[in-house]
């Protein structure tokens, strides 16, 4: 029994449809307004005259005007109202769409509106209880009274309908012969005992305690939220807008990717040029590395370049340590302990081969935590090193001849200008690409080789690998 069960809102099942149906009903009522609604008139259909018929084109025109939308969208909205059952076609009744011509439609009577057709049980049960209440007030048992109150609450706006139905049924029942009536009453009562049994899973007191507990937890959370530090809207919204403008030219939906969008031209050069490990990345890609340190790190090509830069500065251990921490956080739980041990030996222990420079306090916390390692045991140290790289090394990297070299090497492809014939050809020549499964196998083989042999320039090797794949792709 969870807190959630104790306070489950029975209206939950119906709220999603209700949110939409309420809006639809509002529109349909407006459409039926004699002055400002869709104009209706009696229409001849075969030999009969149908009253209050409306045409498809009038419906579409009214919706387009009301919502200030174009004809296509108005048709779509109108068809939705037909699909829901608020409007029905007089001709071609199997196709539930609005035809924007003189096709005839009528408004459905509210009795049959979709909001009435909830699981029959609950509406019927409400009618049943209301009917018994009419017959003799105070006859409902405790659990029935509770159910009645609950139903009255979330079926509130249909209560007139329910009472009307209850009165109808009560009146109709009075007209039956007495023996029939008694039998029917017994059957009905038995039915509801089966479908709405009086037994509850927990007592009232339990429910109260749970609700109280939940209320308390809510209050504590709200109190904490009040004390949360927050930022002025102008500052944070300003940052959101700035992000958009910074990345504007990199967004393929706003600016054409060069040489062309593979989905449009069926030419995959854009993807080949931007593969994970290429010798010469594109200018756009290199520019992105300047947007934030996170961007540089998350692009494997950028990270490789940064790694080489750090090596030249004799501070490569920082990035290696950071990568080791990520591996612990997101790696398999089983190997976490030994990985933590390895990291301690390599980076943190006294006299470690790749000792990292963190302050005494952080080192103390980390070493202590390593006695009982968990996924986030190196968090403090990792944050420290990350900030060090971000605030110091990253800036230096961007100003270094290393990066300037990269900018010079970066390529800026010409925009493709395919003719229609060429596009046709491209679409016929779509080729599959190498499966990620193969790519991973190759990467693992390469890593094994590198671990065994002398250290090599990783970018050279990786680009050879990806060139090899490109060749393979073209051949398949």
């Amino acid at each position, binding site marked *: 029994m969870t807190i959630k069960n104790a306070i489950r809102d029975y209206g939950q099942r119906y*709220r999603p449809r209700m949110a939409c149906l309420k809006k639809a009903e509002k529109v349909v009522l407006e459409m039926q307004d004699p002055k400002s609604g869709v104009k209706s008139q009696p229409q001849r259909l075969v030999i009969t005259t149908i009253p209050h018929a409306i045409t498809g084109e009038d419906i579409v025109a009214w919706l387009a005007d009301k919502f200030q939308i174009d004809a296509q969208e108005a048709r779509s909205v109108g068809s939705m109202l037909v699909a829901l059952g608020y409007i029905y076609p007089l001709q071609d009744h199997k196709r539930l769409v609005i035809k924007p011509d003189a096709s005839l439609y009528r408004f459905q009577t509210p009795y049959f509106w979709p909001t009435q057709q909830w699981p029959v049980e609950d509406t019927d049960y409400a009618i049943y209880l209301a009917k018994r209440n009419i017959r003799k007030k105070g006859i409902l048992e405790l659990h029935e009274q509770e159910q009645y109150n609950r139903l009255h609450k979330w079926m509130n706006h249909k209560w007139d309908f329910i009472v009307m139905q209850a009165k109808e049924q009560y009146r109709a029942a009075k007209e039956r012969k007495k023996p029939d009536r008694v039998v029917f009453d017994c059957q009905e009562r038995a039915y509801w005992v089966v479908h709405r049994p009086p037994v509850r899973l927990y007592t009232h007191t339990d429910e109260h305690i749970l609700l109280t507990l939940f209320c308390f*937890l809510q209050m504590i959370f709200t109190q904490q939220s009040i004390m949360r530090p927050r930022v002025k*809207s*102008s500052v944070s*919204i300003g940052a959101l*807008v700035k992000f*958009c403008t910074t990345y504007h030219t990199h967004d393929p939906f*706003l600016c054409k990717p060069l040489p062309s*969008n593979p989905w449009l031209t069926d030419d995959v050069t854009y993807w080949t040029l931007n593969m994970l490990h290429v010798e010469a990345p594109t200018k756009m890609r290199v520019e992105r590395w300047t947007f934030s340190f996170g961007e540089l790190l998350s692009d494997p090509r950028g990270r490789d370049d940064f790694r080489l830069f750090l090596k030249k500065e004799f501070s490569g251990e920082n990035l290696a340590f950071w990568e080791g921490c990520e591996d612990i956080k997101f790696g398999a739980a089983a190997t976490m302990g030994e990985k933590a041990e390895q990291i301690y030996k390599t980076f943190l222990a006294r006299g470690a081969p790749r000792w990292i420079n963190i302050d005494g306090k952080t080192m103390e916390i980390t070493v202590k935590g390593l006695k009982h390692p968990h996924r986030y045991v190196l968090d403090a140290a990792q944050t420290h090193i990350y900030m060090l790289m971000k605030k110091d090394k990253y800036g230096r990297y961007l100003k270094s001849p290393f990066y300037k070299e990269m900018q010079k090497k970066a390529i800026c492809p010409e925009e493709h200008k395919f003719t229609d014939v060429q596009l046709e050809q491209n679409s016929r020549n779509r080729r599959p690409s190498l*499966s990620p499964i193969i790519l991973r196998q190759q990467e693992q083989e390469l890593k094994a080789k590198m671990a065994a042999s002398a250290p090599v320039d990783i970018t050279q090797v990786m680009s050879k690998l990806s060139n090899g794949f490109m060749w393979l792709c073209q051949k398949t």
Partner: protein
Amino acid sequence: PTIYVCFSLCPLGGTEVQLNETLAHLKTESETLKSKLEEERAKLHDVELHQVAEKVEGLGQFVMKTRRTLKGHGNKVLCMDWCKDKRRIVSSSQDGKVIVWDAFTTNKEHAVTMPCTWVMACAYAPSGCAVACGGLDNKCSVYPLSLDKNENLAAKKKSVAMHTNYLSACSFTNSDMQILTSSGDGTCALWDVESGQLLQSFHGHAADVLCLDLAPSETGNTFVSGGCDKKANVWDMRSGQCIQSFETHESDINSVRYYPSGDAFASGSDDATCRLYDLRADREVAIYSKESIIFGVSSVDFSLSGRLLFGGYNDYTINVWDVLKGTRVSILFGHENRVSTLRVSPDGTAFCTGSWDHTLRVRAICSLI
């Protein structure tokens, strides 16, 4: 300490009336605190998003085309996810089938038949070598993919997550080794794939959790979830605590997605609106809605720069919103039934929608006039 205080206030042997009174009193206090929170939030609210966006240039007219239609599912498509290689896709449907496609060539590469129907969640592993899926079986299973066409993928399947109600969404974290799930049982959970061990659970929603999204990796270890209790909660993956909560929607939240910078997120709900929440300002900053849109939003995603928000709706359409200015820039037709899932590709060159009409469509922009 909380629990003791609670019991001392609650007269255990008290009458129905007394218990009701205590509860009513508490509820009033709770409401007062909530108003106080809104007051505090409002104090720092000195500008609206559309005001700041006035300086930004408007967008032109969009012409978007369906460039691929993937046919092959025998029933409603419920969920899809992109592979990091920017062209492969995994999709799941009501008939229990999970299909891996190369969307570029429209070839089907792998297919799995789940032992249950209504596979409501599926995800591609970061390595591209496995997929995760689940639904009415209350589980999330990981299937390693194989190049051997004759191999039955179900043989190597790993049962990872176990919930007590349906699985609504799943996502790998930064590696193939961890999965985050959300469920109809009201909780989210983080699992170790190899062992199936529960690493962390997240409690706080008062009803079914329908969706989740992980924060972009640079911004730390958090994720956001949305549920039938109309709340969107932001969670700390380390502690399992809910660090922020937003309750402005009027109905169930079907989809949440982080803004690419990680400082905001969008939500789509059955109340027919999409909303943008700024995490640093701790408030809702935009509502994307129109009077003519009365059907709920099933799925949302941002374009690469965060300027565009794509929403898949239950009235079969896709609406494209200018995130900064708050206006709708385009409405797209084409699906013949509800759009159930929508994701932008990893490099932002296209977006894919899955629908109850059994198909998936990949769309890209042809021109911007």
